[in-house]
């Protein structure tokens, strides 16, 4: 998950944060990091580019991107073999 955190920081240009600043269960959207709908789209691109995982329906975003942990679980469950 440390790698994933690094990738999130890079993708969203969160230059003021380090991976250790982001809790595994910390909410990413609304509260917590306060990310928005554009960040959600960027995370969808990240999943595709780095993990070859597709999130076809952006409406699923809030569930999948709730925290780094839920993201990691989604990747594990959907990553092609």
């Amino acid at each position, binding site marked *: 998950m440390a790698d994933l955190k690094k990738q999130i920081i890079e993708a969203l240009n969160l230059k003021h944060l380090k991976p250790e600043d982001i809790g595994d269960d910390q909410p990413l959207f609304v509260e917590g990091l306060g990310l928005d709908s*554009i960040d959600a*789209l960027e995370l969808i*691109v990240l999943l595709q580019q780095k993990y070859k995982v597709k999130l076809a329906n*952006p409406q699923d975003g809030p569930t999948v991107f709730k925290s780094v942990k839920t993201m990691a679980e989604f990747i594990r469950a959907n990553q092609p073999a």
Partner: protein
Amino acid sequence: MLTNLPDTLKSRVHVAGIGVISAIGVSVNQTLQAFQHSRSGIGPINFLNTAHQHSLPVGEVKFSNDQLEKKLGVKPHLTRTALLGIHAAREAVAHARVNISNWRSGLISATTVGGMDKTENFFSEFLQDEQHGNLHDVINHECGKSTMLIADDLGINGFLSTINTACSSSVNAIMLGARLITQGMLDVVVAGGTDALTRFTLNGFNSLMILDSEPCRPFDATRNGLNLGEGAGFVVLVSDRVREQEAFDSLALVSGFANTNDAFHQTASSPDGRGPYSAMEQALKTSGLTTSDIDYINLHGTGTLNNDLSEGTAVKRLFGENLPALSSTKAFTGHTLGASGGIEAVFSVMSLMQQCVWPNLRFAEAMPELGIVPQKTVEHASVRNVMSNSFGFGGNCSSIIFSKA
């Protein structure tokens, strides 16, 4: 430098001519026929060379660049944006039958893509080697260049301006034209906008995941996004003095307008539609009309989940339960981006001319949150005043009201 004209000396703003080109026709007459037959222009991509050719429906003008060049008799290699703009602007000027060179004239156009249709072809070669790529393809890249090409074609060099406020661009152009006439600075203004389909915008909107892979369904409960379109729409605005001296009946009056900012998010509209609400409310205020005077609203109505809910919320808040007839014509044309305000201004004036309201195609079920049922068919109606909305990225919200002359 500043002297305000007293209200009694301020000219009214007449619409003397209209011109339009879009997926549903290359003229006002063709457009009218499309409306009357509920014939949408949304379909497969034909001319644009893109990886999404078989997966995304668009509102493409049914002429290639070569065909447009031949039709217009212009020199080759003009951008598609300029070709579409010249086509519609010429129609508007011809329709107006005003000799623009006899008056203090201006051209105010609007575009979001400018010459990008050619630039993106240049770029793939340029990326491989900075000395590659045909410079002809980038010489007209700038938005302002499209306007220059239209101005040079029309023979206007008095006043030139280009506006780019994303999807509200061309209605802002018309508003500026109206202000210049009202304040006695110009007599005739050709105002509107033009935008061509490009890989840049198609992919841009695709990356935002707001494109529908089916023909769009604005204001429908199950809507799933927008279809991109292209085209151009221009109106010829004139002062009282021009109308009197040239002795014609004006098609409509520009009676009110407003430009506000939602200031909520860069691309999303606020849930309560505060920007759209204040644009519509202030447009009404400047017109001196009340909500019950509006007989038809041409909605921005892109078909995205966000816009339609936000705009619908604002409409309901302003008009209450007494909604006028309303529809989004983007179900016919697609979302023509910077040209949408100009194209839909023409549709609004057509509504007044024909005493008709236009349908919102492919509507089946109202949004459960709002219960708004748009106009489903073409219908003759008493149309005194039409409101047209255009909202864009960057929070730019504009609304304009056209009235029967």
